[in-house]
């Protein structure tokens, strides 16, 4: 699907809001921002149909959930564990998302689980036979976990409707991807599963979007999974407290020169879709929206002890089902 003008405008709107979110949130203690990686997140999760499920990588998760309909203020309140959090403060909202928007997060801090669970979400699609597909994303460091291998192989064997997007930002904490992945390419791993492995410029939101849409079409048509290796770069630290001093400055400069937001802006301006003034306006609006959401969340009350449990450890029986 070639993006038309409206779509490009929408991508820009999402991309700048994502940038604002990452930049403003990274000022909060302990946040794992993904400044520089927004094009992968927006490109991967923009085009899903309402009935479809997804499971985004923890870095960029808020953007993905917001694109699927979650409220920015409540998402941020969830990061802070406020009473207005989507779970009344029960789960950390930075990595765990409100599932009512068909968007899965991590219920623990263990990387790799979401890929396996997303694979089962795709299995449910297949069992229902309703032509829906699933998109999940993960870091390149996560692709070294055994669960990655098992998930992709299972999806390949059962021809499941799922798109695996690697948000390949060059680092896993301080570990360079060329240390933990000898070829440097996550796409190469698709060879072993007999599925397409596609490298894409992760700082080009349109390229990511197109690659994911093509893979989604394959998936929805029953042709099985695709692995997309979206190359990008983490300009922020691993988390707020990390000053990423380990990134060589020439490397950083090179990636800053390829900034995904600047790139889309240049494209939009050059093709006459929007002028600089209009784009600035959108950016200012996004800035204000995020700032307001953070301020509102900060003003919210702390989580209330009524949310504690433990009387609801288990999901109760479904009355008809149990007695049928």
């Amino acid at each position, binding site marked *: 699907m070639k993006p038309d003008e409206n779509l490009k405008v929408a991508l820009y709107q999402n991309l700048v809001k994502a940038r604002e979110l990452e930049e403003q949130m990274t000022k909060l203690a302990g946040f794992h921002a993904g400044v520089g990686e927004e094009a992968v997140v927006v490109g991967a999760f923009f085009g899903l149909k309402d009935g479809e499920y997804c499971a985004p990588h923890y870095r960029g998760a808020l953007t993905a959930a917001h694109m699927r309909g979650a409220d920015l203020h409540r998402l941020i309140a969830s990061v802070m564990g406020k009473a207005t959090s989507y779970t009344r403060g029960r789960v950390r909202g930075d990595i765990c998302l*409100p599932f009512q928007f068909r968007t899965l997060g991590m219920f623990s801090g263990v990387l790799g*689980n979401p890929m396996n669970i997303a694979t*089962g979400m795709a299995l449910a699609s297949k069992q229902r036979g309703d032509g829906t597909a699933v998109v999940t994303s993960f870091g390149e460091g996560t692709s070294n976990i055994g669960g990655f291998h098992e998930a992709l192989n299972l999806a390949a064997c059962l021809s499941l409707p799922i798109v695996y997007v690697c948000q390949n930002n060059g680092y896993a904490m301080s570990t360079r991807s060329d240390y933990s992945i000898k070829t440097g390419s996550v796409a190469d791993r698709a060879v072993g599963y007999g599925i397409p492995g596609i490298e894409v410029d992760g700082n080009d939101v349109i390229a990511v979007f197109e690659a994911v849409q093509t893979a989604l079409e394959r998936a929805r048509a029953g042709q099985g999974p695709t692995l997309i290796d979206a190359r990008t770069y983490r300009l922020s630290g691993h988390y707020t407290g990390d000053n990423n001093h380990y990134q060589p400055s020439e490397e950083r400069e090179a990636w800053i020169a390829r900034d995904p937001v600047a790139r889309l802006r240049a494209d939009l301006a050059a093709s006459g879709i929007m002028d600089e003034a209009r784009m600035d306006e959108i950016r200012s609006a996004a800035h204000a929206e995020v700032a307001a959401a953070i301020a509102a969340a900060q003003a919210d009350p702390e989580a209330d002890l009524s949310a504690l449990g433990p009387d609801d450890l288990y999901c109760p029986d479904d009355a008809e089902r149990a007695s049928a």
Partner: protein
Amino acid sequence: MTQMTFQEAVVAAIVEEMDRDPTVFNMGQDIGPIYMGAMHSAKGLSEKYGADRIIDTPISETAMTGAGIGAAICGMRPIVQIMFAEFLGMTITPLACEASAMWYKSDGQISVPLVIRVLCGAGPHRGHAEDYIGIVSSVPGIKVVMPSCPADAKGLMTAAIRDNNPVIFFEHMGIYHGPRQEVPGEAVAIPLGKADVKREGADVTIVATGMMVQRAQRAADKLAAEGTSVEIIDPRTIVPLDIETVLASVRKTRRLVVVTESWRTGDPLSDMVSRVAEELGAEGPLPIARVALQDTARPFALPLTRASMPDLKDIIDAVHKVTKVQK
């Protein structure tokens, strides 16, 4: 009523639920028409439901479990067969870190109606006896079921499939193809979390699980001849445990013997013993004895295997030990 082996009873329950609920499906290694599951644990299912609902998978227990969770949270009711309980370690990260917590942490947005079937226990196979029940019982939010007879196997499987939480269902190989016994002909769920008093008695309470329930029965017969009246409780659901039924019994007998085929180290029934001691120990003498698997890896040669497991004599000795104490 009809007559079934343990294995037949489990499969019968699955068939009943698959017939009435199109969202139930099975996934596992070699459960298809050729192999029909290890020890014929999926016999007949593939012929009846085909490869769409009886799905063969590569050897990848973590992905199978994760996929089961993913399908469950999207409206399906998967039954994942992890061939042997020995492989539960590979399921524990998705189960313990994600599935167990989803309902609570999502504040009720996500339920995980998933059943994990596993074979366990000393049986005809000369391996794979480990149940690793301690591993899966040590995280809140997962239900753990271990039936001791065909009727319970059927009713508990019915309940497990209908339950909205992750349930691990242990199928003991030592009683799997045992004698056929009466089971209800139609679907009757046995509620999870309800213990069963398998035998009423006055002098001592034996809590036993799985294959050990039969052994406890045999011991009780012998003890009855000596004049000791034994009450036997089978928790059936190990987590959550029906502590009330146990407490009621021990309140009456004030003597407790626990018989499991698990290691003491990490045996989930330790917590039960602890609760009994907390609730009733302050009131007066409360003799307690445990009979468990030898606290080493399970030895292989048959004489060693046997000697490492609780036998009739061990159970009777334990009862003697607690009845020695006068009330």
